[in-house]
């Protein structure tokens, strides 16, 4: 797959799976043995099924979750993405009852693809900002 083909796959992951909740598309876009290398808040799940369940659960709490892709950078089998996540806090999340507040945070992710499928991801989301917006941690200077 070309860099442009890999970028198109990653774009579909965000625009169709993450934003529209079409988790069955993951069978096409992601390897069954997908490996995540995440941060403290979202963790590092293993396997496409775990990711599917995670996205379904996230959509039940944050039904209007929308990822805006701000930038994509590709080389070889890697695609980097800088994005902004926005959603309304409609269900209990991290023990916090729904507030109806709009939450927004930033993320940077790197995907490794093989044969047109997402194999691995390395990412950081601004988890500290999320827990601050949820009122779990006071904002610090």
């Amino acid at each position, binding site marked *: 797959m070309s860099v442009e083909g890999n970028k198109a796959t990653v774009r579909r992951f965000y625009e169709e799976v993450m934003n529209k909740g079409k988790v069955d598309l993951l069978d096409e876009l992601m390897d069954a043995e997908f490996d995540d290398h995440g941060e403290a808040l979202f963790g590092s799940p293993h396997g496409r099924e775990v990711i599917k369940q995670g996205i379904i659960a996230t959509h039940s709490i944050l039904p209007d979750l929308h990822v805006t892709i701000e930038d994509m950078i590709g080389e070889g089998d890697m695609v980097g993405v800088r994005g902004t996540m926005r959603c309304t806090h409609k269900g209990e999340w991290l023990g916090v009852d729904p507030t109806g507040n709009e939450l927004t945070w930033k993320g940077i992710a790197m995907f490794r693809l093989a044969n047109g499928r997402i194999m691995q991801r390395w990412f950081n989301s601004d988890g500290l900002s999320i827990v601050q917006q949820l009122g779990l*941690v006071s904002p610090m200077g």
Partner: protein
Amino acid sequence: MSIEENKVAIRRLFEAISTGNTDVLNELLIPNREALKNGITAFRAAFPNAKLIVEQLFAEDDKVVCHVAVSGKHQKEWLGATSTGKEITWTASLITRFDNGKMVELWAIRDELSMMQQLCIIPAIGG
């Protein structure tokens, strides 16, 4: 400047962070070089044995993307925590934009939540 030269510049920056030798930054085109040097020196004071491993580094056009894993023993005030003596690890993801070999823009997210949890500034959340 080429994509490969931009990558080399990022590796030099990480070398400065890994070793504390900020003189390697003198050859790089960086705005606010002295502020960056001071930041690295303060970081090395808090984590004198800090190690940085570059896990991913790739580039296209004017941007370099990377993911690094950092570890170090906490020896001096950091993020409001006084010296804990704890060995902690975290990751960071960065995108740097170059213009003619000069680093002109940086987007970076480090796992500050994890750092603060490991330093026991805040309780465990998520994961």
